């Protein structure tokens, strides 16, 4: 356009009434975001609406917060819409229609709590195992588990078993911590970063902040993922791996590194069990266990003398190869040599794995070389002194700037535990765990597997469980099975089905309870998990199980109590609803006893507090649980005079002590708030947190920031903080003895052995060295019939099912197509916009498709949890979530197809029981004909107990 002379003169901004400095808010209240489990610090701007009520006007990240440093993701920013969602439950509800219908009547809290108590009390008095209490992605597991323990039921777990226990357990058994929530990359210093199977992860904002740092520093980012979206889209290189084959790819790189000698030998000798001697006496009951001296310490070969020495002997120079003769004449070899032998096998050669992994051999070679280059040619030296646990002073910190990150793409497979182990293992071989530029633990980690609790499940009437439910078994002795080898827990965790089920198997609870296998229950008590919908494999089947009746017409699962904050699908399938507050209306605690928000340089914890008051008759679930505990008279919940011990959750947070001086919150302990970590309860602790922006940070001294498992200063600091009671240095387990013990049982040793038909699978899956086997489902179905993989991803701007009630987020993700690779689409005659039938061994769905070129050629994918059941979430008729949004879950079964012997096992990792969501195999055909453009299966609908949302939202009008 031609520029025109300004006549009349340009109107000055002020004349236009443009206020450049408008009032922003009356007050900022700092709390913790809970639009996802990342737990960022959030500044909540409060102002008054036209009626003088306080409303939330704007949310922004808290710049001082260690997790998000001021940024906020899409979910976080849309918290206003969640907080004012029309789907919020308003009052306790008692079911009046059949399960699934959504017909409820509103009741008072007194009636609700009395009802719950009346359902729970008989179970506790007669048989606590008749209660199954499972919680979803809440962040108060140290509290809910304490309640369950006091109740005495063995049947408690949170959602980790279907989520990411493979990653957690794989890391903890290997190095006492894992990618995921227990550690992170040294973003400032890493030169090469590989991210395996991550769409979003719980570290949503930190990963993004980290990636941008890497880019700024010119570090290389490699994304290993069948799909090239999100982080993989910005990665410098994308490795479009075939699902379920990462283990093979990783071990092939291990072979390359071993061949070229590109592993950190001094590191392996000092900090791992690489030199430890493994007994070689085939057939013996200790074949494959560590050779130990009389003092029980593992033995090594001293390189100078060729003689045996204790691994604890700091003067010994352990060898990594050779054959040792043990007293008594038996042979033993160092872990390293056994390991090298295993991985130098031609079956791990790049050429041998290329086709399976869908990655060119040359690329595997090059990536191994690049790792080696970054680790050894770009070595980092920090001039920082530190002292190791043997008292030896080091004047430098040597770093290998390579780091990995990984999550469910690896863990949600039936070989996920071993794959997760393989990746931690590779990170160790490169000498880059807890060294500058590598992977770093976040306090209270590192924590060796031995320092974790063991599982407990012995129940007695009216008695608390004698220890925590969940833990880390070290041998078959720690399994939770009865004299006949039958599972003691309803989810069969810690049985031969899933021996190392450190997080339980929430995905099996409903199925097992409905089958009364191993036994029936009276009350199913769920919290914050949409088990009738996206949380379950086999969604249609789960809805059937929740409504299944016996000959008498009674529900097989007699009573279901559920706490949700919103009108989810699961609400419709429960009998008694305990409505929770939103995250801005309650106290919460992000505790170091639980899932930490620490950073590698600092321990941190945080709270939520009611920054606004609820406008409905709802109560914070933790406070309700305290109330229930008191009504049931659970030990720890009542004072000596029988009155409730804690007023509410806030009171508990401040007063409760787990061990003397150790409470839910680590900051401002001691009467004056002078202590951190350990200290007496401080009645003003929460106020201190609020003053400080809702969180507490304790920085790790500089000399203690790296080499944490072996760093004396760190160990002392951690003891001071109360993470452990005495220093606990340890070495990493390249070779895992606990795994070998399970393998020995499968080989016929010991008095606890797996059932016959499970021996082979235990033997294979419990390899003490990281291994790879094909995912089970792929092996059990006809691969020519079901040639394709189907997986899901987290969308960055949506949190599971609960984002759909959010007026803003649902515009971004209101529907989901199935993304189909071009070659597959061509073969099936599919174009974007078409509809297709997708079939697995278990089910069939009809869905809209979109053709893509940016994914692995054998892999279909879609966004997770967009589809909704009609009537849920206060959504109106025709909501796209119900017409064009679908769940892949209908295709996934909680059991694998029957085997030759008719036996069906859980569709889970055989080690940990982690749900194998991503093992799904399918075929795809074009859906033709009239009406082919609608979703199948039809899942019915539910009446909305909260009505429907308004037609128009004009947020901001409230005060404008």
């Amino acid at each position, binding site marked *: 356009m031609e520029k*025109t002379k300004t006549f009349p003169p340009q109107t000055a901004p002020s004349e236009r009434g443009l206020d450049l400095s408008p009032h922003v808010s009356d007050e900022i209240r700092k709390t913790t975001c809970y639009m996802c489990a990342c737990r960022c610090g959030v500044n909540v701007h409060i102002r008054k609406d036209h009626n003088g009520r306080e409303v939330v006007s704007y949310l922004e990240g808290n710049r001082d917060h260690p997790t998000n440093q001021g940024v906020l993701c899409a979910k976080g920013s849309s918290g206003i819409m969640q907080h004012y969602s029309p789907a919020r439950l308003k009052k306790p509800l008692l079911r009046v229609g059949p399960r699934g219908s959504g017909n409820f009547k509103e009741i008072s809290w007194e009636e609700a709590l009395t009802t719950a108590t009346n359902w729970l009390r008989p179970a506790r008095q007669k048989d606590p195992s008749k209660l199954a209490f499972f919680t979803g992605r809440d962040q108060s597991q140290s509290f809910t588990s304490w309640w369950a323990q006091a109740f005495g039921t063995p049947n408690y777990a949170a959602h980790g078993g279907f989520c990411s226990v493979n990653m957690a357990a794989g890391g903890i058994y290997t190095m006492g911590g894992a990618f995921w929530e227990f550690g992170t990359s040294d973003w400032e210093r890493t030169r090469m970063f590989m991210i395996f199977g991550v769409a979003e992860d719980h570290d949503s904002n930190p990963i993004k902040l980290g990636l941008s740092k890497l880019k700024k520093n010119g570090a290389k980012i490699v994304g290993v993922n069948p799909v090239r979206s999100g982080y993989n889209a910005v990665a410098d290189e994308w490795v479009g791996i075939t699902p379920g084959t990462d283990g093979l790819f990783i071990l092939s790189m291990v072979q390359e590194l071993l061949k070229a000698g590109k592993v950190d030998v001094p590191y392996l000798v000092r900090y791992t069990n690489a030199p430890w001697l493994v007994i070689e006496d085939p057939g013996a009951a200790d074949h494959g266990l560590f050779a130990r001296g009389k003092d029980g310490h593992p033995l090594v070969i001293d390189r100078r003398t060729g003689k045996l020495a204790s691994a604890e002997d700091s003067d010994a120079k352990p060898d990594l190869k050779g054959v040792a003769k043990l007293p008594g004449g038996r042979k033993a070899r160092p872990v390293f040599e056994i390991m090298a032998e295993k991985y130098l096998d031609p079956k791990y050669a790049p050429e041998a794995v290329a086709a399976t992994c869908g990655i060119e051999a040359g690329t595997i070679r090059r990536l191994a070389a690049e790792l080696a280059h970054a680790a050894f040619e770009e070595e980092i030296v920090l001039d920082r002194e530190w002292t190791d646990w043997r008292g030896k002073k080091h004047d430098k910190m040597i770093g290998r700037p390579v780091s990995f990150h990984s999550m469910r793409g690896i863990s949600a497979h039936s070989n996920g535990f071993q794959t997760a182990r393989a990746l931690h293992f590779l990170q160790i071989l490169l000498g880059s765990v807890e060294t500058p530029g590598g992977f770093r633990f976040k306090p209270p980690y590192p924590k060796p597997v031995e320092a974790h609790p063991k599982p407990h499940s012995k129940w007695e009437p009216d008695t608390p469980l004698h220890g925590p439910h969940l833990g880390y078994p070290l041998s078959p002795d720690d399994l939770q099975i009865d004299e006949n080898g039958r599972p003691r827990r309803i989810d069969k965790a810690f049985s031969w089905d899933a021996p190392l089920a450190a997080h339980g198997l929430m995905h099996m609870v409903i199925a097992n309870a409905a089958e009364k296998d191993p036994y029936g229950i009276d009350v199913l008590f769920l919290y914050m998990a949409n088990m009738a919908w996206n949380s379950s494999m086999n969604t249609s089947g789960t809805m059937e199980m929740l409504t299944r009746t016996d000959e008498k017409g009674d529900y097989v699962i007699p009573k279901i109590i559920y706490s949700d904050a919103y009108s989810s699908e699961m609400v419709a399938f429960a009998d008694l609803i305990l409505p929770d507050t939103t995250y801005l209306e309650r106290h919460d605690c992000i505790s170091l006893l639980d899932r930490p928000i620490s950073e590698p340089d600092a321990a941190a914890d945080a709270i939520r507090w009611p920054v606004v008051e609820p406008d409905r008759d709802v109560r914070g679930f933790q406070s309700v649980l305290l109330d229930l505990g008191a009504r049931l008279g659970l030990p720890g919940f009542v004072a000596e005079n029988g009155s409730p011990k804690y007023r509410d959750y806030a009171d508990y947070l401040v007063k409760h002590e787990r061990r003397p001086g150790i409470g839910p919150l680590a900051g401002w302990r001691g009467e004056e708030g002078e202590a951190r970590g350990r200290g007496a309860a401080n009645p003003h602790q929460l106020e201190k947190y609020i003053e400080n922006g809702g969180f507490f940070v304790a920085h790790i001294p500089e000399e203690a920031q790296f080499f944490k498992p072996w760093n004396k200063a760190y160990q002392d600091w951690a003891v001071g903080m109360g993470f452990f009671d005495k220093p606990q240095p340890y070495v990493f387990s390249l070779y895992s003895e606990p795994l070998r013990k399970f393998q020995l049982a499968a080989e016929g040793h010991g008095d606890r052995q797996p059932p016959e038909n499970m021996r082979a699978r235990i033997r294979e899956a419990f390899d003490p060295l990281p291994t790879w086997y094909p995912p089970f489902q792929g092996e059990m179905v006809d691969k020519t019939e079901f040639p394709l993989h189907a997986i899901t991803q987290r969308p960055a701007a949506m949190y599971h099912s609960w984002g759909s009630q959010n007026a803003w987020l649902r*515009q*971004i993700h209101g*529907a*989901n197509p199935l993304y189909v690779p071009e070659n597959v689409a061509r073969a099936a005659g599919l174009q974007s916009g078409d509809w297709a039938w997708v079939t697995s061994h278990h089910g069939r769905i009809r869905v809209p498709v979109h053709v893509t070129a*940016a994914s692995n050629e054998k892999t279909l994918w879609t966004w997770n949890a967009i589809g909704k059941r009609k009537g849920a979430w206060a959504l109106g008729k025709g909501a796209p979530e119900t017409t*064009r949004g679908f769940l892949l879950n209908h295709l996934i079964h909680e059991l694998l197809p029957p085997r030759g012997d008719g036996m069906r096992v859980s569709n889970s990792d055989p080690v940990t029981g982690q749900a194998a969501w991503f093992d799904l195999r399918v075929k795809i055909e074009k859906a033709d004909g009239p009406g082919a453009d609608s979703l199948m299966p039809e899942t019915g609908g539910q009446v909305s107990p909260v009505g429907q949302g308004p037609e128009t939202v004009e947020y901001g009008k409230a005060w404008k």
Partner: protein
Amino acid sequence: MHPAASVIVFTTFSGIGFGLMTLLGLRFGVENPWFQWTATIAAYFFAGLGLLSSTLHLRRPDRAWRAFSQWRSSWLSREGVMSILTLGVFGLYSIGVLFLDVYDPWLGAIAAIMALVTVLTTSMIYAQLRTVPRWSTGWTPLAFYGFAIAGSLLLLAALLATFGAPHARQVEQYAMAAIIIAWAIKYGWWRHAETATLSARGSGTGDATGLGRIGSVRPFEPPNTSPNYLMKEMIYRVGRQRARALRRMALFLGAVAPVILIALATYAGAAAPLLILAFLLHLAGMLAERWLFFAEAEHAVGSFYRATDPMAA
């Protein structure tokens, strides 16, 4: 672009109305008061209805008066100013004609020129938009003129015939010629439109995003899963079949039928009803033509939402 009824009516009707004002201002009519009254009312009816309809397009019509302020840069403002001025000047001229029996040729000529300028301003609202390659061409004002003149001549001929004016036949012939010329221009416009695609203009998906330098570009995910204002307003999709059928209909109603009817009128004597019918059919054809004018127009923002490069489709 979304073919909103308000703008379709606005552009077609005001074209005919101001076209008729031009013809009347240039004294194409007859000094029959009945004719003058009818013709003047018709001119005001079409121009007025067009303008009124354009205000229906406004979401805040109460502020329409502000639209007169930016004549120095905005074609829409100019259109507003010109149409009101023209209505005024033509009104003065008409008062003379209708009430005072005064024909002021100068005032008539000025009104005629202003009416023509108004048609130009209307067309420039669209022709100025670089964002819509089909519109952004000299062919657009030409086509607007062609149809304004053809439609108004046909209307004039029908009126003249109705009032038994002797030169109705002559005007019929002009109208026929004008229809043919207008459609010839439209043909030219269509030919131009075929090449005036986003990618040809350098506004294809690859250019729009700047990602074309890496390779061929196609949208993967839109920002929202349900349609938004932009998509509803700028990305109207007409099926190829439907477009072809409508184009045929526009051509038949707007050109072929009127031409045949005019020819019949010329030779069959019963001129007025045939010409009125011809005009009505032409008007219907023009509405179809205008519908397509909007509906088929690609807006540059479409490049962000769907592949505009055949290579990437």
